[in-house]
């Protein structure tokens, strides 16, 4: 029902926080008990006197979380990082397809320190550049897909929360993601990141092979195949690890943000991420039998090459 003039005037008054008009009465929310005295006993709506019920609610404030602060439970879109890096973004909670355990998804260069991390290393939330320290440890490094100079599909890693209750199912400004979908050129996508928050862009390419600098040093690059390009850019430094979702169906993941140029953002396909890490987004799925895991060897590779720093010879330009 639209607000009538009397209700509008009431809402403009100091101390009145809100009005609700369920059938048969009017509820008026006020900041303080003293504000109750300002309320009329009844309000006339379309010629009918309706009784007023006053409720002391205090002031309503927009709820805005600081993405760079310590958040428990920690949602997707907030600051996180391996203890030896600055900070990236907690992408999303995901499920291990075999054990159904809830895990944290982000990039290898965020959770795995670009191959240099060891399984079990502490993961800070927020990341160290945002004030994270040992007391901010939310998880330990679980596994990652090793990045090699010549050819990669994903920059992805998982962390295992110390306490399951410390990980939220939600992503800030996006909500809960429950499934994945293939992406397509022209599709509008969205992400929620530690630095630039919520933003949207359009997919312009789903078959790109690109050189990405920063593995692990600024002048060393690794090649990534089968990448999604988004324009205009939706990521800034610190947004790495953000989950990318379909903007028209935010429960569906399409990618994992990991890199960008001055004008574009590069995103791993989420299908590749899920296949290589053996994860999914649905709490309803049953555990998959180990025998059916064709990619179990790939998922185990990070353990085999857990300390590959001496082998890792990125290309230099």
């Amino acid at each position, binding site marked *: 029902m639209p607000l009538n003039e009397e209700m509008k005037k009431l809402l403009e008054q100091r101390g009145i926080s809100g009005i609700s008009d369920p059938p048969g009465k009017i509820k008026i929310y006020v900041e303080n008990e003293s504000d109750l005295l300002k309320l009329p006993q009844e309000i006339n709506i379309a010629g009918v006197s309706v009784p007023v019920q006053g409720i002391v609610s205090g002031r309503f404030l927009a709820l805005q979380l600081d993405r760079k602060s310590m958040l428990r439970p920690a949602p997707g879109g907030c600051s996180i990082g391996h203890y030896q890096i600055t900070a990236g973004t907690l992408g999303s909670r995901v499920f291990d397809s075999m054990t159904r355990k809830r895990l944290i998804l982000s990039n290898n260069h965020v959770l795995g320190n670009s191959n240099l991390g060891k399984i079990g290393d502490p993961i800070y939330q927020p990341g160290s550049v945002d004030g994270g320290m040992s007391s901010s440890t939310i998880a330990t490094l679980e596994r990652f897909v090793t990045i090699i100079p010549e050819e990669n599909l994903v920059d992805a890693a998982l962390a295992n929360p110390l306490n399951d209750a410390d990980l939220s199912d939600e992503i800030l400004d996006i909500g809960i993601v429950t499934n994945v979908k293939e992406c397509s050129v022209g599709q509008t996508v969205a992400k929620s990141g530690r630095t630039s928050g919520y933003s949207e862009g359009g997919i312009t*390419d789903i*078959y*790109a092979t*690109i050189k990405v*600098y920063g593995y692990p040093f600024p002048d060393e690059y690794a090649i990534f195949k089968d990448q999604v390009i988004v324009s205009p850019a939706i990521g800034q430094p610190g947004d790495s690890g953000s989950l990318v979702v379909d903007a028209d169906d935010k429960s569906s993941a399409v990618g994992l943000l990991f*890199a960008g140029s001055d004008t*574009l953002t*590069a995103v791993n396909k989420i299908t590749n991420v899920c296949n290589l890490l053996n994860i999914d987004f649905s709490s309803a799925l049953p555990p998959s039998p180990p025998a059916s895991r064709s990619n179990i060897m790939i998922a185990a590779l990070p353990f085999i090459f857990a300390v590959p720093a001496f082998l890792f010879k990125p290309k230099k330009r």
Partner: protein
Amino acid sequence: MVSLSEAVSIAQKQFLGIEGITGIGMAEGRIVFYVTNMEAVQKIPSNFMGYSTSYIITGRFGVL
């Protein structure tokens, strides 16, 4: 004539090692070259294996 995706794969192998070419993909039936600056544009063919090419000056891609 090879398919566009095959042509893109071949172009990726042939051109990605060239200074200034930072990525190769496809869009709207063309092969797209991502380049760091105008100098690199001179190294891009106007068509490749029967497909038109286009370019986007992106600068380098780096981890975020």
